[in-house]
């Protein structure tokens, strides 16, 4: 779904409640109360003007986790639940969290570290008693990243009595269980995908996402590119599925707005792992001023390698390249080697691979637990799972503050919460505000990769878009 459609959707969905929220200032929420914000106020009428960009300076936010604010405002309607009483029934003694993630099959190795981080934090929170009066248990089951298997896994977990779900990986996988979970009124929190679909609060109030939406990310790249090369001739390279399209549709909109010229558009099929010689050859022949690339997984290093070859073959051509932050791991850039040098990408988490962050309290706790658990591999990926675990516990604490812990109070806490997780970059925060802002994270720091040092350099300040 495009940004405009999304805003339209959100606006119409809440029109009956709050006409003012969409038309006027972005600060009023459905019941007239405003959750406290840590990072300043939002620009008025952000979604209706061309300059939808809000840049937040990083200096005024803290790096340590702030106390979650008590939930207020948006409430969920349980009358349509298949069992309304169950949704409000208090959870006693132990809170059971369920998740479906790929543990076997091809993508398992890539996502395994996320699962490790997720479990690591929840076990840590349980051991430290971070949810007073409750034992936290987590049950992660295997769906092999196959969306036809996710419903079975989720059904089994419901039958086994999980209280809610968090961190299910994959857009199709989350889509496949969204109807069931909303009908049963079971929270489906912090989906580990950036699909814009997780903002449909009117139809799917029980479903929320954990990543910065892909279209928001694309919009941030467009903003940065406009600073670097106004009026650039841009070539697009993207994976030919919903993931790639979510970026590209939004980027094209922004391109019209900023006056970029799209000179070439090349796609790669999801199952194609050959070097994209044909596509990159076509892009090089157009000599664009910049390239925006949305490959997936191992297509990232093969694309960058093919591009490096094309640059060497085309004298005097060395355009800036933006790649999706799903490529932005030490692993993929490491595989690409020198070909990845100078590539732009983004993130909203502090890089645990960078030695300069070792003293950051959040990173330190994470790395200590990481080492204590005997985990190996890329902590940069594990970090994402840890952060989702942390947000989950923050939501539970906020729900607890409201009086009772129940499925209803959990989703209401998740959707009325502003807090700063310990691993996010200064300036970014978890912020949801009922129907006004159905997305948790909408801030990204644009980064540039240095192949020599194996670290990222921050380019400018973090950019926040659409945050209300």
């Amino acid at each position, binding site marked *: 779904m495009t940004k405009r459609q999304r805003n339209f*959707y959100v606006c119409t969905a809440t029109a009956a409640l709050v006409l003012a929220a969409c038309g006027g200032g972005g600060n009023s929420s459905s019941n007239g109360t405003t959750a406290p914000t840590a990072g300043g106020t939002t620009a008025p009428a952000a979604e209706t003007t061309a300059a939808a960009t809000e840049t937040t300076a990083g200096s005024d936010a803290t790096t340590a986790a702030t106390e979650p604010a008590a939930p207020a405002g948006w409430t969920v309607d349980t009358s349509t639940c298949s069992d309304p009483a169950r949704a409000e029934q208090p959870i006693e003694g132990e809170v059971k969290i369920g998740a479906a993630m790929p543990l*076997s099959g091809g993508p398992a190795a890539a996502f395994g570290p996320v699962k490790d981080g997720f479990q690591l934090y929840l076990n840590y929170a349980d051991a430290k008693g971070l949810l007073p009066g409750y034992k936290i248990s987590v049950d992660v089951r295997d769906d092999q990243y196959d969306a036809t298997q996710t419903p079975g896994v989720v*059904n*089994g977990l*419901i039958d086994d009595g999980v209280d809610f779900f968090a961190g299910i990986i994959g857009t199709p996988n989350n*889509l496949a269980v969204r*109807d069931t979970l909303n009908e049963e009124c079971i929270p489906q929190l912090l989906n580990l995908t950036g699909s814009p679909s997780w903002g449909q609060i009117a139809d799917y109030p029980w479903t929320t996402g954990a990543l910065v939406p892909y279209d928001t990310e694309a919009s941030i790249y467009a903003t940065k590119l406009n600073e670097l090369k106004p009026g650039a001739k841009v070539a697009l390279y993207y994976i030919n599925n*919903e993931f790639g399209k979510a970026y590209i549709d939004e980027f094209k909109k922004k391109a019209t707005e900023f006056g970029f010229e799209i000179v070439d558009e090349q796609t790669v*099929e*999801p199952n194609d792992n050959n070097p994209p010689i044909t596509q990159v050859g076509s892009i090089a022949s157009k000599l664009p001023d910049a390239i925006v690339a949305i490959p997936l997984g191992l297509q990232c290093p093969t694309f960058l390698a093919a591009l490096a070859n094309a640059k060497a073959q085309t004298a005097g051509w060395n355009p800036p390249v933006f790649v999706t932050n799903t490529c932005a791991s030490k692993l993929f850039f490491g595989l690409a080697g020198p070909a990845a040098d100078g590539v732009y990408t983004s993130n909203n988490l502090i890089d645990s691979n960078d030695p300069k962050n070792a003293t950051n309290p959040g990173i330190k706790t994470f790395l200590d637990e990481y080492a204590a658990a005997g985990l190996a591999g890329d902590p940069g990926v594990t970090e994402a799972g840890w952060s989702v675990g942390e947000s989950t516990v923050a939501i539970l604490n906020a729900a607890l503050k409201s009086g009772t812990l129940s499925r209803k109070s959990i989703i209401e806490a998740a959707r009325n919460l502003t807090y700063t997780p310990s691993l996010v970059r200064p300036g970014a925060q978890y912020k949801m505000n009922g129907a006004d802002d159905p997305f948790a994270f909408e801030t990204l720091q644009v980064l540039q990769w240095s192949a020599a040092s194996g670290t990222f350099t921050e380019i400018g300040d973090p950019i926040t878009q659409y945050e209300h």
Partner: protein
Amino acid sequence: MAIKVRSGGTVHWIIRAAVAVVLVLLVWQMVSGASPSSLGKYTDAMALAIAALSLNLLFGFNGQISIGHSTFAGIAAFFLGYSVRFWDNKPFVSLLEACVLCFVIGMMIGLPALRLKGPYLALVTLAIAYVWPTVAAQFIDRKVTAVTGESALTKFRINPATWTGLKANREDRALYLFWVALALTAICYVVVRNLRKSRVGRSMVAVRDNETAAAVMGVNLARTKTLTFGVSAAIAGVSGWLTAAKIGTIDENSFTILNSIKYILALILGGVATLTGPIAGAFAYFFADDYLKEHAPNWDWLPGKFGDGPIASFLLGVLVIAFVFVAPQGLVGLFRKIGRKIAVIVPEPIPDSTPEAVHQAIHEGE
């Protein structure tokens, strides 16, 4: 040693009745007190069984191999999703229409198949399965995402019919779909069985065994082969429809070559060219897979630190290979071998064995 049982005699009927009773008890056992997730598993297993039945018709009885049957399942699934969501089609009407659609497409694919044999035919069908996800993704992009903004076909779930008294929630929907699956499996089984025992069925087998000989005996090769392909595709469509009805969300990756490979395994493990083999094979394969996935990661006696990883998938591969040595003719072959040690069905003796009487008896048998 083995008891001789006369075909069609009282004892034979008692055996048949006993089998029927066991089947009913088995279904009863499945349904009573079952959780929605285990009912869902039975439904999945039955969807696999229907796909294996369809492949058996084509491969087992007609000798044409197809690695593209996942595509027919996918077409029917997309038809269900799209027509219910956007045309307000009735789900069961969409089932019939999807079958017709798959039948026609199957006939068309059956045409080039007339000239190709064995691995060459396998390749052509494989190509179809390989290209399908791309076409499906474009379909979703143009016809679905453009309208709904979502990357999959959604919101076409089937609610229980009102006369059943079941509600539109997770538990009741699982139960309802279980019964729908059971009915569809039974229907597909009867269709395949009756087809096999009909004149067309004998033509199919004759073509499989020797095309030239069959043609000489007056079998219309082209008609038999394309017709079989069409019917088989329609049954594969039923399987895809059922899967989609159960999941309620489908996209381009819901039906890939790997699904076709599952169909082939279920068929061969159950018993090629047997009537009940595909069903037995599908249940055995599905639940072996399910059991390993649930338990194998926790087995401490396995060497090394395997973690949650691909151990279940590895053991399934090993199990499949080992099974071929235990039961090379599939589960049905294994049961028959055991059964033959207990009882043998002998044909009814022909009272008058003059050539004329034998001739007449054979014709009556038809």
